């Protein structure tokens, strides 16, 4: 089995939003919506303020509440790497998944189904990185298999301090941020 996820180096990220724009063109995300986004968190007083920049998206949780709450089975784990996907045809647009997602990663597509990050599964199946990862000019994003101890993402987690978002939500997220 594989467990796909991302490791994002916040030391290198400059918050340029290239990941957001690349996702929109790659996946034809309708204007006004986004499957990924940038958050900047600032703490402390000038001039000693600390800033963390985060490129955020669906965490493709291993214990995904969106999958559990979905009444039709539209939200599901993909065969490859446990990627969390929404089957558009089965989605009835009830928004239960949107309510259950602690990350605010989902939205209703103008065509009526719930949409979100797919880790660019169509690219991953071809052996490519997701669009956000492959466009990043700072090379701060890494995609790979956490079940493979020799993968780049596994090694990065072994060698660097890191955190995930809202671990207390208990969803076992698969995106980690290096600090």
């Amino acid at each position: 089995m594989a467990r796909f996820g991302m490791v994002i180096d916040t030391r290198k990220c400059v918050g340029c939003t290239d990941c957001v724009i690349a996702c929109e063109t790659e996946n034809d995300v309708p204007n006004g919506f986004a499957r990924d986004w940038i958050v900047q968190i600032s703490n402390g007083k000038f001039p000693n303020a600390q800033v963390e920049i985060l490129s955020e998206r669906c965490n493709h949780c291993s214990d995904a509440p969106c999958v559990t709450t979905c009444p039709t089975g539209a939200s599901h784990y993909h065969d490859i790497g446990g990627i969390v996907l929404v089957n558009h045809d089965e989605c009835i647009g009830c928004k239960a998944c949107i309510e259950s997602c602690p990350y605010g990663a989902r939205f209703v597509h103008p065509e009526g189904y719930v949409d979100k990050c797919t880790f660019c599964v169509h690219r991953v199946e071809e052996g490519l990185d997701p669009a956000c990862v492959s466009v990043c000019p700072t090379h701060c994003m890494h995609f790979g298999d956490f079940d493979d101890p020799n993968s780049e993402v596994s090694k990065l987690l072994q060698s660097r301090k890191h955190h995930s978002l809202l671990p207390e939500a208990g969803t076992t997220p698969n995106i980690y941020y290096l600090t």
Partner: protein
Amino acid sequence: MNSLSRRRFLKISGASIAAASALTSMNSVVKGAQKVSEKTGKSVKGIQKIPTYCSMCFWKCSAIGYVRDGKLWKVEGNPIDPLSAGRLCPRGTGGVGAHYDPDRLKYPLLRKGKRGEEKWVQVTWDEAFEFIAKKMKNIKSQYGAESMGFFSHGIGGGFIKHLLKAYGTRNIAAPSFDQCLGPRDTAFEITYGDVIGGPERTDIENAKCIVLLGSHLGENMHNTQVQEFSKAVENHASIIVVDPRLSTAATKAKFYLPIKPGTDLALLLTWMNVLISENLYDKDYIEKYAFGFEQLKAEVSQYTPEWAYPVTGIKPELIRETAREMARYKPSTLVHPGRHSVWYGDDTQRGRALAIMSALLGNWGRKGGLINQDVFDVPSYPYPEYPKPKRENADNPNRKYPFGGAEGYTTGLREATLTGKPYPIKGWFVYGTNLLYSLPNMQETIDAMQKLDLLVVIDVVPSEIAGYADVVLPESIYLERYDELFAPYFKQPFVSLRQPVIAPPHDQKPGWWIAKKLGEKLGLQKYFPWKDVEEYLDTRLKMAGLSLKEMKEKGVALGEKPPLYFEEGWEPEFDTPTGKIELYSTHLDELGYDPIPKFTKHEEPQPGYFRLLFGRAPMHSFSRTQTNRLLTNVMDENEVWINADVAKRFELKSGDYIKLKNQDGIVSNRIKVKATERIRTDCVYIVHGFGHNSRMLKGAYHKGASDSRLITKYKVDPLMGGTGMNINFVTFETEA
């Protein structure tokens, strides 16, 4: 030679690179690239990958446009491109949005109302050309050909420039010099006999210590620079950032120096003092290559860290510690020369201080420093000689600014238009630059335009300047056209091709076509001997040992890499009067200017006022991308950064809308407050380019505020004529 580096000039005119070697170094990356049907553009099913180069900013990375079932899908970096290494910046990725921009210019327009009223009649291209040609002929017969002026930004202006030179004028200017990097390049020219250039000759990726002084890498998204900066961060380079604002780069720094605005030169002179008084500078290097060390030592002895403390607000120990940090990593300590450097009017002297710092650290010609660049030599098209203008250029009469005019002197040309001196300027072409937002003091530009018999604006979006035009010509965007070849000075020389990826959606036309057709109307056919641009490009490429056919497939051809460092064989030659790095400038001394920079105090804000600082956001370029819906999706208005304590004092909180009023009573559009711990209490900061008032820019109209409207005051650099713009102060007006 004042205006253009002689070294570069010699290189440009000499065929130094063997074309054969360039050919063998090319790799095919794109298979199956096909010609787009320029008529239908939509007939091809499936996915086509077409290489071209970007124009979302001036960096001009090579890109690959993806067309899916005849529609533009996405744009990616070209993997063999030395600038992007296959990764575009957010604007480049968002270039798709420029093609689909609903607010773009669609048809040629002729003015119906008064200048600035934005009332138009749609006309045919032929009617537009008839109108322009008639006016141009009148101007030539009544005032002389030199009475036509041209303001241009970007490589796309090349064909129009050719047209105007053929017509008989050289009154051509670009804001990229006097409103941007002019002071920096002038300073390095004086000191080293060569410029920094663009893309900059900075070896960021190999630097062990990087000093950024007001240079906000990561917010200014110069692709190669940001990519290399990220590598330096990964390699644990020691980063020192000097900025009144905790910029993105500053958040990555080991040392952040929150300097009082306008005192950077004081800090630089004090760093020199420490490097010299503590014997930390590169003695061998200075002895071997530099001129005037003793004079420099004597001059900077007055600038002690204790003196600098009340001036700059930086504690003496921090000044000493950072100077020692730089010395520790020399010569691989890169004091970044910056780019946009028109701040206070003494900017060339500040640039000189940066140049001298680099010399003291021994980093010009060294790994991790300022390195050698070369160019892929592509001979120019064998055109007939241009007519010689009868009068000298109007922009800098009697060389008032001795180092002015490397790219023409913009505000000088504006002044000549306004005053009619030294002779009247009666016509302007404006290409790809929103002059109202790129030159300081908008009113002077508006007044100058009232003196014109003809104002032609060629652009892709209806910027504010277009609203004042007699004729607006809609150009196809870069993804829809052929353009000039791009072959810059860089550590890896290359040439790249721009070719159409997709057909323009309306009646937009490429610059080359506009120039040729108008040239024919003006009877200048002999200057346009090529049938079309493909013939023009193929002729030039063949002279360089390439061909259009292969360039259409690959997009980029690489040249031979020069030695980058002295250690690799780059000759340490300095084209200065003494043949050395001039710490003490004999040229400046001769002209009566300070041969070594001196600190002078700049005006400070009155109580209740704050210095207006401006800069860039990574997802926008100038004032030309604010209707690109892919980019507005991530940023559709700017905010004014106000120190959190100051905001509290004014009872402002983040998200409130206010207006900014400057020292001359000019009031901005409304702008959102960002109360933040990331800026000093004596200044505010906004991103340049927002605050549009052109009603034709529906997607950007009245979103955010424009720094350009508030920059009524500017201070001219006596050496090169650049316009220092960080000398305006604003206060807050809350909405009723």
